[in-house]
């Protein structure tokens, strides 16, 4: 099969539209994953009867099952069961966010454990309230160190967005599929879709590595 520059160019506008959706999903999913991850990490650590073990169980369950199945279950089972009619986009944000929160929770846990015991002891000696120990002493030290790891999960999430094709989200890959169905040319749109992923994730990886070096100097 030979490469046709004209159909490649023709498919580009739709693909870029799809890329925008993919980036939006990744950014919103990341915000959810970062926020929820810290909640999971703190809940597991707090050793609250029932709540902490349940959180631990849910986190382990989500980490041990494929994201694609979770997307299906959320969209076709959970949402109808509780009477919610969410779009594929919103479902995608929730699925990606919750799934990756189970990984970022572990990242936060490691970051929190890396804060030296002496910091906790100094906080106790100053009689700081529990909440302030977290917000003023522990998290401000733990979070900067885990920013690179969080960034890597965002890149990873970006590359998993095409799974949302399964519930009809018009991301880059779905747009490529659409173009292919309309023009009967598949090489150009799929190749371009792949290149578009590269164009975003490569600079993002370089950025994460730069941040990593800076954090290493903290």
């Amino acid at each position: 099969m030979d490469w046709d520059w004209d159909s490649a160019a023709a498919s580009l506008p739709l693909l870029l539209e799809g890329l925008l959706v993919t980036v939006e999903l990744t950014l919103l999913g990341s915000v959810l994953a970062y926020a929820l991850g810290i909640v999971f990490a703190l809940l597991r650590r707090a050793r609250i009867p029932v709540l902490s073990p349940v959180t631990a169980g849910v986190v382990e369950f989500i980490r041990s099952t494929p994201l694609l199945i979770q997307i299906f279950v959320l969209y076709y089972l959970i949402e109808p069961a509780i009477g919610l009619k969410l779009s594929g986009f919103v479902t995608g944000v929730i699925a990606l966010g919750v799934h990756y929160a189970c990984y970022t929770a572990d990242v936060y846990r490691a970051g929190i454990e890396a804060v030296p015991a002496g910091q906790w002891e100094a906080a106790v000696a100053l009689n700081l309230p529990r909440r302030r120990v977290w917000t003023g002493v522990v998290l401000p030290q733990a979070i900067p160190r885990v920013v690179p790891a969080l960034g890597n999960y965002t890149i990873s999430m970006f590359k998993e967005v095409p799974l949302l094709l399964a519930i009809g989200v018009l991301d880059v890959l779905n747009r490529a599929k659409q173009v292919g169905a309309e023009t009967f040319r598949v090489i150009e749109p799929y190749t371009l879709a792949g290149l578009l992923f590269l164009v975003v994730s490569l600079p993002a990886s370089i950025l994460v590595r730069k941040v990593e070096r800076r954090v290493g100097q903290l």
Partner: protein
Amino acid sequence: MSDSSEMIRFDQVVKRFGELVVLDELNFRVGRGEFVSLIGPSGSGKTTILRLLMTLERVDGGTIHVGGECLSHRVKEGRLVPADERHLRSARKRIGMVFQHFNLFPNMNVRQNIVEAPLRVLGLSKEEADARAAQLLQLVGLADKMDAHPARLSGGQQQRVAIARALAMRPQVLLLDEVTSALDPELVAEVLAVLKEIAAGTDITILCVTHEMEFARHVSDRVLMFDHGRILEDAPPDELFTAPTQERTRTFLKAVLERG
């Protein structure tokens, strides 16, 4: 029960770490405003005493009183029960601690380190807390380091900030845990000079775990010699350093002085 001149009282205090008995039915008292140095070989339980007082560890037996109030236990329906977090928070108000490794908060500058607890715990206004910080930095000789970052300070300077931070809470009892042990030799003197000034200028009760015998001799009202979780000797410094009654004290002092 206790007279008003008594600040700290240990009654039959036991502390174990697993099988290891660190403190074995320890009894001692410290008077209000006294400067008491705790000396002895490492592992003899000196630091554990400070950590129990700071409520960083819990007693396994016996009771600890500070300022007439029970630290380790509270009274519930006429019986002593182990203290809960609320009781500990109230008991800790009287006590401050300076650590061997400073433990300044690296995410805050010098001023923020000092005003943090006065703002959040004592409820001081920003102006009051800043004024207190400025005054204490003056006292420890670091008035020009208000906005410096801890990482940019020498060990001796960091430790002086840590002293100011502890004093900002106006504690009645100050615990000094080997505060010069992590310092380069040439930085020890500046920290000891500050402590001497504080010891002379305030009525704070100070418990000081140290290997600086010259310093202990100079500032202490009393020196307690520890070995294996027991007090071997309890005497004014001139007595203990010149005429120890115990053979163990003699060999310990000899070893320390020869090293120095």
